[in-house]
């Protein structure tokens, strides 16, 4: 079995050699490793499914508290066909997407402005640090108090949870732009606005995206928790409701739906990030 050491230290072609070998080549071993990686990954998922199915069936865990995967699947299908799943999922989607997109729309321009002017940055940095370290859920009672228990408070708490990762990453991305790139932009006589558009923003984008990915995960986490506390629809509500009513397979089905949602959000954002940073190794 190849170890990390063997895999990472494999000889690679240098740029001239790669050019001579032809366009888009990779070494034979790298090609095989890729196929093996996919196969093994799939195997791991299947193994988890088998364990989940067999452990309750053979009494390794209490089948009443951990339903076998097949029952969870049946409950999920049932909710899907009856339209109840979509009802809860869409409620969650609207809230998390709303808060998340608002955070993106506000935090990126604001973070940019803060980073562009060092005195502003120095003024607000400690304040932002305070806010960032205040857990969003700790503020949920405040949001409910001020905004009520309706949609507004849920969107607001998602917005809050998403806002700071994006804002802080935007600030750090913009302020840590390579000083040599700025010097070459100045030498070319670029205006501040053009320098920002063509140099600073593209340079900061990978860091901003890291913030956006963190925000994507935070959006779902915070929303599920908020829905468990005060809601009449949504995946968090569905999980809690199912547990109260001993609908255990349905509870797991709802949990798996949040997993799927999390995966979709994360991979969607990763794909988007890749689209914008194809230039990276």
């Amino acid at each position, binding site marked *: 079995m190849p170890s990390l050491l063997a895999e990472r230290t494999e000889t690679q072609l240098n740029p001239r050699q790669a050019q001579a070998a032809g366009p888009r080549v990779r070494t034979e071993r790298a090609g095989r490793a890729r196929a093996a990686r996919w196969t093994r990954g799939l195997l791991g998922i299947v193994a988890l499914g088998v364990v989940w199915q067999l452990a309750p069936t053979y009494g390794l865990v209490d089948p009443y508290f951990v339903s076998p995967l097949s029952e969870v699947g049946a409950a999920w299908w049932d909710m899907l066909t009856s339209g109840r799943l979509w009802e809860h999922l869409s409620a969650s989607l609207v809230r998390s997407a709303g808060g998340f997109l608002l955070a993106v729309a506000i935090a990126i321009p604001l973070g940019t402005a803060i980073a562009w002017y060092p005195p502003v940055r120095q003024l607000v940095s400690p304040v932002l640090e305070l806010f960032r370290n205040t857990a969003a859920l700790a503020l949920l009672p405040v949001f409910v108090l001020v905004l009520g228990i309706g949609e507004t408070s849920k969107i607001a708490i998602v917005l809050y949870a998403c806002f700071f990762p994006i804002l802080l990453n935007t600030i750090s991305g913009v302020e840590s732009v390579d000083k040599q790139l700025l*010097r*070459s932009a*100045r030498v070319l*006589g670029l205006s501040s606005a053009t320098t920002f558009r063509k140099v600073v923003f593209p340079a900061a984008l990978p860091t901003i995206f890291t913030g956006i990915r963190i925000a994507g995960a935070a959006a779902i986490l915070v929303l599920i928790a908020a829905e468990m506390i005060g809601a009449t629809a949504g995946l968090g509500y569905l999980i809690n409701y199912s547990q109260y009513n001993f609908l255990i397979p349905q509870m797991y089905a709802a949990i798996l739906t949040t997993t799927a949602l999390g995966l979709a959000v994360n991979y969607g954002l990763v794909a988007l990030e890749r689209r914008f940073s194809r*230039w990276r190794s």
Partner: protein
Amino acid sequence: MASLAGASKIALRDVRQVFRVRAAGDRAAHEFVALDGLDLDVREGEILTLVGPSGCGKSTVLDLVSGLSTPTAGAVEIDGRPVSGPGLDRGVVFQQYTLLPWRTALGNIEFALEAVGGRRKAERRRVAHEYLELVGLTDFADRYPHELSGGMKQRVAIARSLSYQPEVLLMDEPFGALDAQTRERLQEELVQIWRRTGTTIVFITHDIEEAVFLGQRVAVMSTRPGKVVEIINVVLDRTSGDADIRSTAEFAAYRHQIWGHLRQPAPAYRAEVHRVA
């Protein structure tokens, strides 16, 4: 083009550059004199190399000529007009690779042309290809900087700086981070490019051989405060094609002469730091 040499393109007159510094644990501000009484003339169409020990203020000189900073005292002039800021009449190649990592080799050259303006996209692309060809990287047009070797990146940087046809090319130890072989090849290529374009080049280096090989004149700087202590005219027969100029007796003599100037002991740091009253 070398026949046009003579007129003064860049002039530095009695330039003084002072930085305010504050030592750790010391409340008083000090003046650190980087350059003092520096005089230098660069003639139109020549390659002038500026050689000196590390930290002597070579890059400070380049910052002044490029317009990134202004002198504390004295004058920096181009064609008799004082330098008031960066301008497209001057191109700069830095030691660190300053390519935009999210743009391809071609895209990086187009970046400079966008900054200059006045050309359509297709026209910019054509010009960029032309300059990529000048540095021998036609096959690498679509590569991103991380897919290029150090020498290739510096070729792209040179092509980028030449693409908008500046009258002066300022180079700050551009080959310093390259291996010896690549460095020699790029030095030869630079001389060829210079012959073709006739651009005035100011080339900063701490490598004596590089200074002699490239420079028609070599300005030797002393350290702290930095000033030009000697200007040496280099006359080497470069017309004989493949001949290895670096191993000739004349080359060795120039090398030794400059080595002698640089060897003089540098004054201690403290001696040049004056307490501000």
